[in-house]
């Protein structure tokens, strides 16, 4: 069943949901990266929770005029209006009161959301036809998704991506160094507003599939996941789009293959799975890599300190050092250096002297910056440069006993 869903064989509705979700995932991942870089991730949570009153009011309006209260475009327009109101309140609070941004976010989020829940309960008691379904905007509900719905999501996602492509450079500059951006004449507050507008677009478009409570996860988690894999901001954006799209696609497929599972939470769990994998296994910034690096580093430090101690005739007390030296065939069981050990020790001492020359010399600044007590000098300088340094420090010294 899952395979069928992944291969888009599970029927019209499931296929629509999968495609719409993927587009949403990609644009949420990409948009969310700029939020993440700008350190405004939780503003998206305030925006998404602020959509609820608008959805409910739009429904009431449309139903009371005799139309279909569940018309998606109408509901999304309503959500956009109240989300804009929430954003406006947030800006006003941070700018005109002494409230810090996090407190302002909490206030706006809870007040708007509470108001929305009240409206939702009112609607449920009104008995206006076919009101069931608005709760679907909380966690996402894809049952009975229409071609028109999927088009709205697809177009919204595509337009968002295009706009981001257009203003990616100003947004990156503003996220990295807003003062410099202002000095360059960039309209920083307008760019921030544009970014928030894009976030709102993604939120509104994602209300149907992922729901307002969890859209923030789809905005943030892919960006954080991508951060583990690269040190370049443009790659973070691309990888976040990939992560968002992938988790949305798989999540939508899983949800389609087991109809009782709500789509939004499954998608979020998928993106969390990707995040967990990256957290643990990413080569540079992952936890496993860090742990392995630490132990490897510890062994290298002990080995090097042991060799230097041997070279200078100092006694070695640490058990780990002695064990490593013994296992490497560098000392005998009684702690006396072997020939191999003496040779290595002499080289270690010589390298320290070479490093001292490098670090004192202005011309070798880039190489000197790489000194960490362990790095092999041959990996940083050419043989000619090393020979040049050797001329200063004289020949190698023999290690005694």
């Amino acid at each position, binding site marked *: 069943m899952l395979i069928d869903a992944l291969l888009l064989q599970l029927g019209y509705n499931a296929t629509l949901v999968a495609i719409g979700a993927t587009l949403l995932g990609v644009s949420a991942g990409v948009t969310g990266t700029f939020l993440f*870089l700008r350190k405004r991730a939780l503003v998206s949570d305030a925006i998404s929770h602020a959509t609820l009153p608008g959805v409910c009011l739009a429904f009431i309006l449309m139903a009371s005029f005799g139309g279909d209260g569940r018309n998606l475009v109408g509901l999304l327009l309503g959500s956009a209006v109240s989300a804009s109101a929430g954003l406006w309140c947030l800006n006003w609070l941070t700018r005109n009161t002494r409230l810090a941004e996090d407190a302002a976010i909490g206030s706006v989020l809870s007040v708007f959301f509470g108001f929305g829940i009240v409206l939702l309960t009112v609607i449920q008691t009104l008995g206006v036809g076919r009101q069931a379904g608005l709760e679907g905007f909380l966690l996402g509900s894809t049952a009975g998704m229409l071609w028109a719905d999927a088009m709205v999501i697809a177009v919204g996602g595509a337009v968002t991506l295009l706009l981001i492509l257009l203003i990616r450079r100003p947004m990156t500059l503003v996220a*990295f160094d807003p003062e410099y951006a202002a000095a360059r004449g960039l309209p920083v507050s307008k760019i921030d507003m544009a970014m928030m507008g894009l976030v709102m677009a993604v939120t509104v478009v994602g209300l149907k599939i992922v729901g307002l409570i969890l859209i923030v996860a789809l905005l943030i988690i892919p960006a954080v996941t991508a951060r583990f894999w690269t040190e370049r901001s443009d790659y*973070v954006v691309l990888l976040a789009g990939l992560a968002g799209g992938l988790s949305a696609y798989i999540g939508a497929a899983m949800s389609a293959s087991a109809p009782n599972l709500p789509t939004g939470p499954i998608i979020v769990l998928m993106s969390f799975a990707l995040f967990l994998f990256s957290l643990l296994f990413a080569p540079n910034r992952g936890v496993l890599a860090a742990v392995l690096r630490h132990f490897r580093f510890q062994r290298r430090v002990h080995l090097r300190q042991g060799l230097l101690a041997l070279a200078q005739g100092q006694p070695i007390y640490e058990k780990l050092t002695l064990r490593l030296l013994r296992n490497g065939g560098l000392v005998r069981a009684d702690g006396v250096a072997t020939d191999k050990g003496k040779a290595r020790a002499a080289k270690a001492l010589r390298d320290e002297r070479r490093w001292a020359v490098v670090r004192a010399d202005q011309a070798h600044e880039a190489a000197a910056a790489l000194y960490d007590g362990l790095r092999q000098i041959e990996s940083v300088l050419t043989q000619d440069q090393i020979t040049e340094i050797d001329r200063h420090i004289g020949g190698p010294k023999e290690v005694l006993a």
Partner: protein
Amino acid sequence: MLDLASSNGQVQQDHGLDDSPLAIRGLTVSYGQKPAVFSVDMTVEPGKMTAIIGPNGAGKSTMLKAALGIVPPVSGQIQVFGKPLDAQRVRIAYVPQRASVDWDFPTRVIDVVLMGLYRELGLLGRLRGHHKAAAMDCLDRVGMGDFATRQIGQLSGGQQQRVFLARALAQGADLYLLDEPFAGVDAATEKAIISVLKALREAGKTVVVVHHDLATVTDYFDNVFLINTNKVAEGTVAEAFTAETLQAAYGGRLATAQVDQLALALG
């Protein structure tokens, strides 16, 4: 050049407002109700290196930021090469204080310098080989060429400062404004930065630096501007960097021994 004594007895040099790289009139900036900069006039001489000095909290950085439009002034007029600021942004390069940046931001040294070319690239222009070559050239000028692909968090403070300078160089501007570029940097960086600035001056560019170290003013700069919320003095180092003006700017914060020492050094 005319030497005019202004109403409070300080020496002022009057250049035509038309050609001054940076002309400030009546600038007042405040945070809340307290003025950080009050009614300050400044005329920067072209092709020279000018230091803005004053005690901590004197409004030096604020003045620079207001001149660039980063903080909104309460009042004041700014003109850059005789025209309003917004028309001349292309000709100004700004090197901010290092502290304002997140060093865990995913960007490499070369990417930071390429940001200096964003205006030239526009929104959609492709990054071509000659852009990268120009960026590498700027990095080489500040001695950071070997660090191009390192993430910025891996650099020391002085190295980071030099990368920011390279970014400003990439713009090819005529007026350079630097906010405490020598604060907390190592000797090698200080030498690298001052030699780049002097080369800019030789090339006819104008350099304005918010400077924190009184001991190096006479070595590095042609002109000084002393500020302590109000303007205290403005002019060449010989005219405006004297024991009296320093005492007036720093008040009791400079020990008399320091002032005498400086006066001796100033000759």
